[in-house]
């Protein structure tokens, strides 16, 4: 009893989740009820890339990057399971493992590790590379373990609800609360269900969307979140006296299609309180992007994206994330070879937050094949 009390709450929670959720993945197909459905998807991509920088040789890189994302979903009468495992050159993670309960006609309550709803790109495409037109993500939408500034993975409770009106317009609302990533030597690190470590604090997030027609994909909305990010004792930041970061974000976003055009845009306001001995260093900045896509025909799509930030050079928080993309211009073309196969060419000119508070520039060319099975 004493031993259990002395364990950190995040470790107890992860063990409870693992013991409840992992056996669900072992349900044999033959035992499933007749009114249930399940699906298994395998998103595969292979990317060849070449990045070069005249400012910082550390940014020079080239090679091949294969990635596989496995998604399993199960839906019963009132019960759902979702698992997503992602494997790439740089990571090998159980990205999502959630069990859901249909609490009302249009409401599902999930328990587990999920992609928190306060980011647009990660909740739109998750790790399904084929689903996004571009190869790269905007810097502000990067996964937190790839240098992104907003926590993406939270372990706890997520509620998703949809309200459909008589005229077929609708609203979507998602609320979540749980354990936030912590700042470790590698950057922001979410709780790993398969190898849980202590030291995670809390996060709360929301997404609100208005959809003029639920049969279409058009939507506009608000996103936000609050995260209490603990700083691991092994990091340089901890030696410098930083104990925690309290981050608040608020974003507006739009994803709109008409005729042959599609526009995706999001602007996020950051407020980061860095807790130092006897003082709090508060920094605020803006970061956003606008992506335009034009379908030449059903197989060919041209795309371009501009990303920019404001006041980011004063942010002490961003100095902890040297990979954060402050500015980027992206141009490319996607060819859908078949319904589930695409080939994409992308050129980019990128600036990252440099150690001297300036910007390091780099250029990259990428070629990617992506698909999904079955």
């Amino acid at each position, binding site marked *: 009893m004493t031993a259990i009390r002395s364990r950190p709450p995040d470790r107890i929670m992860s063990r409870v989740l693992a013991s409840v959720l992992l056996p669900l993945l072992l349900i044999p197909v033959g035992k499933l009820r007749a*009114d249930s*459905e399940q699906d298994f998807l395998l998103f595969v991509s292979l990317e060849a890339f070449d990045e070069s920088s005249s400012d910082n040789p550390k940014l020079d890189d080239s090679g091949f990057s294969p990635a596989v994302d496995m998604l399993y979903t199960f*839906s019963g009468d009132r019960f759902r399971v979702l698992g997503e495992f992602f494997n790439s050159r740089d990571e090998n993670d159980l990205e999502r493992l959630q069990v859901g309960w249909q609490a009302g*006609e*249009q409401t599902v309550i999930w328990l587990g590790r999920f992609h928190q709803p306060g980011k647009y790109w990660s909740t739109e495409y998750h790790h399904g590379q*084929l689903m996004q037109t571009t190869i790269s993500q905007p810097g502000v939408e990067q996964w937190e373990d790839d240098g992104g500034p907003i926590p993406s993975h939270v372990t706890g409770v997520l509620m998703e609800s*949809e309200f*459909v009106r008589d005229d077929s317009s609708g609203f979507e609302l998602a609320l979540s609360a749980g354990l936030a990533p912590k700042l470790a030597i590698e950057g922001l690190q979410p709780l790993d269900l398969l190898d849980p470590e202590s030291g995670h604090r809390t996060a709360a997030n929301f997404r609100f969307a208005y959809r003029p027609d639920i049969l279409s*994909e058009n939507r506009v909305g608000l996103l936000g979140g609050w995260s209490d990010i603990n700083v691991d004792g092994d990091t340089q930041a901890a030696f410098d006296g930083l104990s925690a970061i309290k981050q608040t974000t608020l974003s507006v976003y739009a994803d709109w299609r008409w005729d042959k055009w599609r526009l995706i845009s999001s602007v996020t306001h950051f407020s980061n309180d860095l807790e130092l001995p006897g003082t709090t260093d508060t920094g605020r900045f803006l970061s956003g992007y606008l992506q335009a896509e034009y379908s030449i025909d059903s197989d060919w799509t041209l795309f371009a994206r501009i990303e920019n930030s404001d006041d980011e050079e004063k942010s002490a928080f961003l100095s902890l994330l040297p990979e954060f993309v402050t500015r980027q211009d992206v141009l490319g073309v996607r060819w*859908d070879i078949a319904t589930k196969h695409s080939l994409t060419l992308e050129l980019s000119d990128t600036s990252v937050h440099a150690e001297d508070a300036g910007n390091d520039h780099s250029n990259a060319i990428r070629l990617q094949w992506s698909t999904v099975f079955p």
Partner: protein
Amino acid sequence: MRVKLELGALFAIFLLSATTAWADRAVVLVVSTDSPIETLSALDVRKAYLGIAVRHGGQEIRALRLSNDPELDEIFLQSVVAMSEKSYTYRLLSNALRYGRPRPPEVRDLEALLNALSTNPYSIACVWQSDADRFPELEILRVLWQDY
């Protein structure tokens, strides 16, 4: 003159029979005869196939697809979901990624479809009217497409 009349009559008979045959070509929405579903609007049919939750008596309607007939598939895409194959495929993949909703089950043949419909009375399917007429265990809810 008589030959011309005979040819004209033959042509008229041919046209009449062809029209009757084409009029039989219709795609219908069916449920099992045990199903409590008595009616379903075209909008709800479209929602169900797009993976949007449609409920009847508190139960979610399960949309099934026959996957062995390219012509039926084409009509389904044009007249039921009003999307290209690519857009429909991406919409269903997106539902799985975003909301954890599995893609609507595809069944290989009519026998498997009949079995699936009778197992879950809240299931719906799109089939040729001629097939629906052959099986008394199927009830037609509405005509989705007809070739006039």
